């Protein structure tokens, strides 16, 4: 695991301060354990309209290419606590416990950006920065689903000035491959969590959407017959049983979601 390799040794020398790391690790571990998984989707109304109402594994050619290169099965994608509007018009958060029913894996960066031919994430690799080296780096950076939160805590405590900087800032210390270098953005340090099976929407704990999607959901709800007491709730009933973070919707629905996450992990 490159950014964690030799961390115990690395933190003993500047710019790391070992005492700070040891002091922060317990609180960073609490944050890491509580961080929800966030999925941003652009086909939500279709998922709601079509049983079995699950987020399917990714279908875009770029994503499939990255999965094939890195040896990952087809996956559903989440970020640990982060939401990016480029993926769609609704952000949905799931509790950490949802991982228990899945197989999957995790990288401490956007895996697609790492192995894309355009090298969206900049790293300094040996012997070169060609695709095979990047694929090797990506594979070495892959955690099992059961172990990533401990690694997340270590990275928060070692590389970030505060846990909050994972959301509102950036890493303040550099790793040998310069993944955390100034040329990279959030996609270089946001933990990407992959489930190898479709994931149902019924486990959601929070959600926010843009205004146009909220209008679509209102229309869908109004077209739905009235639910008779005692009947099984529809998927739309279930969705609205969790209040949206912004009931009218917002163009900045991802920022709304990240604010909720930050309060949820008590930062």
């Amino acid at each position: 695991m490159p950014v964690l390799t030799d961390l115990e040794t690395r933190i003993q020398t500047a710019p790391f301060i070992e005492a700070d790391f040891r002091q922060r690790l317990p609180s960073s571990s609490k944050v890491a354990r509580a961080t929800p998984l966030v999925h941003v989707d652009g086909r939500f109304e279709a998922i709601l309209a079509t049983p079995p109402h699950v987020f399917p594994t990714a279908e875009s050619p770029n994503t499939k290419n990255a999965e094939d290169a890195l040896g990952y099965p087809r996956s559903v994608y989440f970020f640990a606590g982060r939401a990016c509007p480029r993926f769609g018009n609704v952000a949905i958060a799931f509790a950490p416990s949802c991982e228990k029913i899945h197989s999957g894996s995790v990288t401490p960066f956007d895996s697609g950006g790492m192995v894309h031919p355009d090298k969206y994430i900049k790293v300094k690799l040996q012997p070169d920065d060609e695709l095979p080296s990047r694929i090797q780096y990506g594979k070495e950076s892959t955690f099992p689903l059961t172990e990533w939160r401990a690694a997340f805590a270590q990275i928060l405590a070692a590389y970030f000035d505060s846990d909050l900087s994972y959301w509102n800032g950036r890493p303040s210390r550099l790793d040998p491959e310069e993944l955390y270098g100034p040329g990279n953005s959030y996609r270089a340090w946001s933990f990407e969590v992959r489930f190898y099976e479709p994931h149902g929407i019924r486990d959601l704990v929070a959600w926010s959407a843009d205004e146009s999607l909220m209008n679509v959901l209102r229309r869908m709800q109004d077209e739905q017959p009235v639910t008779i007491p005692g009947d099984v709730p529809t998927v739309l009933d279930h969705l609205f049983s969790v209040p949206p973070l912004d009931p009218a919707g917002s163009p900045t629905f991802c920022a709304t979601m990240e604010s909720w996450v930050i309060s949820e992990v008590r930062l």
Partner: protein
Amino acid sequence: MNFLYSEVEIVGFNGRPLVECGRALPVVRRISDGKYCVVDLQNGAESLHWYGEAEANHYASEKRWTLFRSPLNIPKNCVSEAQSMTIQPMVVYTNQRLLDNADRQFLPDLWQDEYLIWKKLTNHPDDVQATSATFSTVATLMNHWAEGLLKRFDAMLRLGRDHEYLLRIADFALCAANDRSKRWEAFLRYSIAQKPDKVRRTFDKMIGREFSSVTWEAFIESRGKLTDVLNTGLVAPVAQPSSVLPSTSSSIATALPKVHGIAAVTPIPIEQLIKQ
């Protein structure tokens, strides 16, 4: 790191037009290197994430981004004296059907001292157009359309139009309205047009959450009073564009008197209202 307004152009917006009218964050292209980003200045320009041409095309093809047929300059009112973009620009889009129903047939070239240049959208019919302006200008323009839709609703209710038609007009008004008091007025009318069985569900899932201080009983009372007023044939005067000022977030306490005040307004003949 701020960027100069002359270095970027607005090429589209985040998301896609799922309904007849809406607003979204702009997607800009940096001229020097052809990189794209969604502009959200809440955390400063340095927090923006830039994407390459191939990624941008991918997002557009997946309908995560909607592109204009030709680019727009950053609105001048979003630019500081140092020529940096410091005020959040927004994109607003609408289609002709909503404008016709709002009695706002023409897209304005000037609104709140901002010049608006309307653009057609790639892979969308010609009657869907979008422009960019400051957040407040976009908000007041949409509320202006909502105002027109609410007036049409009132007039058409009095004329006895069917509930399906009225529901569509109130639904359009909810797409356009973003001011708190306008949304309250739109929700009241939406519930009047709904099938009675569905009103409680809409209140529980949407209205009660957006207006958390309003109880079901208070909502039904307001709805009933508005229905009574509308059924008497008294309607609000037609607002001139200059009277559509930026609204602050009104509380229910201030929103309700506005509704009640309808009864005190000098009536205007329905025929005159419809002509306008």
